[in-house]
């Protein structure tokens, strides 16, 4: 049976690639890479490119665990998920010499805690997670996470929060000033109480709709990723991205080489391709985050380079989301389920 399936798959693959030299199978976030760039790669290297998308780091992990490992060549997990996937043995390694553009990686992103020495990953884009507020609805100071977790009257019932436990509970922890992955009972109870109370003032939970609800006016404030907020602004939402005094989440998405990649060579070509300043700039101009690649700045659209979302004022702190150990994670899971029961 298995042989039969494999043969069929092979036959289909051959039929589909009669014109191309090879294939590349990408597993990527939604709305995160311009189609033109994929086409450019396909034309330059004579490779047939296919892409599936996911909407959260956890969904990526679940799909790979459920048997998709070996189907894709590259994926684009966030920082903490690179660490988790590495620990789970889902990543292949490469030598810097296999990527001629390896030297283009910005120094600050070369030796990162989630992949020391960049053995399995290269930077894709980095940015922050905070929230945006509709200035026509709320005219007060925009400087605190309290606008989301203890909102003023104008914003009550008009707030969208991200539908992922990691980001929402981390921002709540920053607001309370408690560490991530804490096992302290009083701190966890305070976190639970804060989100339980705040939920009454929230209109909806949604990650993929985070931009749309701000553009349509369904929400007057919403947690959002920096570049997504810039996109909402360029689509006409009268919003401002807030850099809270309590701090915000900083993240970096990375292209990783997956274990058992069916087209390892093409995967490395693609990673090398993305380290070209010109191509990294194309992603940044599209997604409106920040590339971790040298010499990108002169190639950026001025409105992207100067976007307020990508240029935090002095003194704003950012933290990476931490991957908690199991005995602590179950308590955060319980708080999240409790919140949505």
């Amino acid at each position, binding site marked *: 049976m298995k042989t039969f399936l494999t043969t069929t798959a092979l036959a289909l693959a051959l039929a589909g690639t009669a014109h191309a030299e090879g294939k590349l199978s990408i597993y990527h976030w939604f709305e995160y890479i311009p189609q033109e760039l994929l086409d450019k790669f396909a034309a330059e290297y004579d490779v047939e490119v296919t892409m599936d998308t996911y909407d*959260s780091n*956890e*969904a990526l*992990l*679940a799909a790979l*665990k*459920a048997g998709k490992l070996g189907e894709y060549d590259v994926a684009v997990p966030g920082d903490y998920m690179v660490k*988790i996937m590495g620990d*789970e043995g889902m990543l292949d390694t490469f030598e810097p010499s296999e990527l001629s553009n390896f030297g283009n990686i910005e120094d600050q992103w070369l030796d990162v805690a989630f992949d020391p020495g960049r053995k399995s990953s290269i930077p894709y884009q980095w940015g922050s997670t905070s929230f945006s507020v509709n200035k026509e609805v709320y005219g007060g100071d925009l400087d605190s996470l309290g606008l989301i977790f203890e909102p003023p009257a104008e914003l009550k*019932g008009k707030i*969208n929060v991200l*539908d*992922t*436990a*990691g980001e929402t509970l981390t921002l709540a922890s920053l607001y309370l000033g408690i560490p991530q992955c804490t096992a302290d*009972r009083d701190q*966890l*109870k305070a976190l*639970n109480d804060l989100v339980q109370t705040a*939920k009454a003032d*929230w*209109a*909806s*939970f*949604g990650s993929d709709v985070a931009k749309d609800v701000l553009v*349509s*006016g*369904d929400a007057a404030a919403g947690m959002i990723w920096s570049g997504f907020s810039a996109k909402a602004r360029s689509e006409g939402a009268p919003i401002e991205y807030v850099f809270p005094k309590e701090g915000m989440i900083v993240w970096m998405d990375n292209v990783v080489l997956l274990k058992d990649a069916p087209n390892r060579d093409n995967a490395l070509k693609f990673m090398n391709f993305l380290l070209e300043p010109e191509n990294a700039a194309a992603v940044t101009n599209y997604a409106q985050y920040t590339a971790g690649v040298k010499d990108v700045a002169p190639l950026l659209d001025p409105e992207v380079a100067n976007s307020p979302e990508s240029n935090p004022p002095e003194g704003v702190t950012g933290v990476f989301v931490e991957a908690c150990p*199991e005995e602590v*994670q*179950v*308590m*955060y*899971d*319980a*708080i*999240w*389920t*409790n919140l*949505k*029961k």
Partner: protein
Amino acid sequence: MAAAAPAGATRSEIYRGNGPRLMLPVWAFIGIFLVLPVLLMAIYSFLTKEFRGGVIWEITLAAYDQFFLDRGLFGDEPPQIEWTYIGIFWRSIWQAGLATFFCLLIGFPTAWFIATRNAAVRPVWLFLVTIPYWVNLLIRTVSMKFLIRDTGPLNEFLLWLGVISEPLSLINTNFAVQLGLFYSYLPFMVLPVYAAVERYDFALSEAAADLYADNWTTLRLVILPVVKPGIVAGCILVFVPSLGAFLAPDLLGGAKTFMIGSLIEEQFKGAAGNWPFGAAAAMILLTIVLGVLLLHARAQAKGGR
């Protein structure tokens, strides 16, 4: 390859004795696509969870324990009955039941209307009922969201009419979820009820009227018993998919509260990554649905006697 039928054998004689063999494809289909997945799920629900998704092959009742027993946020309090998940299930059942009720309320008169039209135009009406089904459910649900949002056409129109002075907050409410479920599954009620009403002999209504039954009595004692199988079938076809629906609660209800469908999804796709618990919740849902269907089967059997 196959042995030729003996000369002169009738069609039914060719099939005689081959029944079990001819049923093989059906059994294979049911076995591979129904029994096997459910069995797999049943097994998974008794396995030990692996951190961040996956299972360890050790038998445990932990998933069912988590579903029914509450040991506090930190897991060290004496066990009490866990109401969280029962509450989520109850809310889903309530929503599905309400959707079934509204579908019946609108679907029955609709089916009646179509069945009592001229035979030539009935197909046109049925055709109109099925047209929305040419469009994907996701698209229809999102469109509903655009219609009823604060700045959507419905509110704009009512504001323009002067019926309301502030936009109605319809989006992200239980009302919106109900509307979505009702709209999604209404034809599932109309079509089976129509099939039953169409076969109804209207001479029975005349006979009832001759015997001094008023309209209400005729409906209650004559029409309803005859079309009941259609109504029951319609109710099941609306109730069961509504129970597991997660598009309407997510898109129209704002995903503020878990429904059964989203609770199970979270166990496989979310940060929780607790596959055995997701499998256990799915098994419990399956048990409820099977229970409803068994009740229906028993009622049918009784009715037939």
